């Protein structure tokens, strides 16, 4: 109860093609994250799924039924927006109740669902307040509650954490993960933050410029990126890309993640000068300017003392080095 299939969906705004043919299948109960840089079409794709935007061509099927002409309210979906989008003139309770009232749900049933949802999201003390009297985190929980009470087949989240501060973001992320586990509902979650994607997703869809670059579990994307874009997008700090020619390699580009490099003061593959060191406690990021490889980032677990200006040798883990061809695709 809650599968989604997208077949060759294209969307153009005037002459600008924003989605260039998206194919995707989401099975019931899956947590799918769309991730990609700002402006790549994530929200547009989500709005097409919701029915808020018509696709230029292609089909969207929810539970096997083509919903191309079904209005958003009848698609069995619920959506949570980045800006919360709560009705400013209604109390928290009525914000949650509005959609159900519109659908003609009996009052007792509405009451029951609001009770469950507000308990789940610790919203009971605020039910009679208006959105203006709530903090950002509370508002987003109300927005999530408004989605939960509809008991949709499909939850759609559009960057729900982007307007929250860092600490709240982690908490709310946890809440969404728990919500998914408890409701076992299908969820589609849009974000530009790869950390959110990695921590929440069963399946990540990496989008770039209106195209799907790769679909896979977080670990698949991390361990076996299909191309340079995915390799650079997943993982933090970002993968180092080194011009193959400089290393005497046949591949166009060599990629190695900062955590797959080791450093030594005496010997190693690439000799370099420490440009800057970031001490994060649990790990240390070193920026090395190497003679052959250029500027690279090295991530060392634990504390490592390196003075800027000192010389260090970096060595990549050969088993975890990626080779990319001229088209950006991984070479086997």
């Amino acid at each position: 109860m809650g599968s989604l299939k997208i077949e060759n969906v294209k969307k153009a705004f005037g002459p600008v093609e924003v989605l260039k043919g998206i194919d995707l299948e989401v099975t019931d109960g899956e947590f799918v994250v769309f991730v990609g840089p700002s402006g790549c079409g994530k929200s547009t794709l989500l709005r097409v799924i919701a029915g808020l935007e018509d696709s230029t061509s292609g089909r969207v099927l929810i539970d096997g039924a083509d919903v191309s002409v079904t209005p958003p309210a009848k698609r069995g979906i619920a959506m949570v927006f980045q800006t919360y989008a709560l009705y400013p003139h209604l109390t928290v309770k009525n914000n949650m109740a509005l959609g159900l009232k519109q659908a003609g749900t009996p009052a007792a049933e509405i009451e029951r669902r609001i009770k469950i949802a507000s308990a789940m999201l610790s919203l009971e003390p605020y039910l009679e307040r208006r959105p203006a009297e709530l903090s950002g985190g509370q508002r987003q929980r109300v927005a999530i509650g408004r989605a939960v009470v509809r008991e949709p087949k499909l939850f759609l989240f559009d960057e729900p954490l982007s307007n929250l501060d860092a600490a709240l973001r982690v908490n709310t992320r946890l809440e969404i993960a728990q919500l998914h586990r408890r409701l076992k509902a299908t969820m589609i979650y849009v974000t530009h933050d790869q950390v959110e994607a990695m921590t929440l997703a069963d399946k990540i869809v990496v989008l770039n410029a209106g195209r799907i670059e790769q679909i896979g579990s977080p670990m698949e994307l991390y361990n076996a990126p299909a191309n340079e874009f995915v390799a650079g997008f997943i993982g933090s700090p970002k993968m180092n890309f080194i011009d193959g020619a400089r290393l005497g390699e046949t591949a166009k580009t060599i990629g190695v993640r900062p955590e797959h490099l080791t450093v030594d003061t005496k010997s190693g593959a690439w000799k370099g000068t420490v440009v800057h060191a970031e001490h994060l406690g649990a790990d240390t990021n070193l920026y090395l300017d190497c003679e052959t490889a250029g500027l690279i980032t090295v991530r060392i677990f634990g504390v490592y003392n390196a003075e800027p200006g000192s010389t260090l040798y970096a060595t990549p883990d050969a088993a975890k080095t990626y080779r990319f061809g001229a088209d950006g695709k991984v070479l086997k």
Partner: protein
Amino acid sequence: MSTATRSLPRTIGAHAILLTYTAIALFPVILVVMNSFKSRAGIFGAPLTPPTTKTFDLIGYTTVFGQGDFFHYFQNSLVVTVASLFFVLLFGAMAAFALSEYRFRGNTLMGLYLALGIMIPIRLGTVAILQLMVASGLVNTLTALILVYTAQGLPLAIFILSEFMRQVSSDLKNAGRIDGLSEYTIFFRLVLPLVRPAMATVAVFTMIPIWNDLWFPLILAPSEETKTVTLGAQLFLGQFVTNWNAILAALSLAILPVLILYVIFSRQLIRGITSGAVK
């Protein structure tokens, strides 16, 4: 303003400028109101002094209420102004919503066409309008005035309101659509309350020219039945003698309704600004 950002000379300077401007702006109004309470001799003898016990006279007001059907003229003005205002705000907001919310062929062109009315005065079309009204049998009806004023007010209303409606969060409207609200409900319940300050501004801009207009009442509805206050006041303006007492009294009275409407809208303005928005 915090103490840190306040400087005494600047405060004095700003207040001096504002007070001077207020005095200049209010001077004619005060002069009219003041002299409306004076006898004819008082008005001409010392036009700049407030009424004294010697010059105080209500003759102007008694003339106004005695002669002509001034209460009726007031009613006409009020009906025309309020009805026109209602239609300008309603249709203006609806058109603005359509222009800002929906993508359709000719959207930009339509917006430009509607904005054209801001630059071309409607009075240029007086002859055609009169012919139209004669043909449709609307001469000497308030309906004629309401129609013309609605047309006159719409361009600016649409221009201002569509700019404001573009700023209303599209997430909010989309949330409404997902909850199954109709486009009308989204417009009336979600969008309109959020653009209330803009509506108040448009209302004030629209209302004053309508209330003060002499041109269209004179041409389209000069009958006794449909006279507005500004037209009615002409009664006392003779070719050879002018009844200044009555004119001043009529003008003073004419200020009142606009003042009341203005107070209502400016309260809306402030309330709109302070009400809780989306974020």
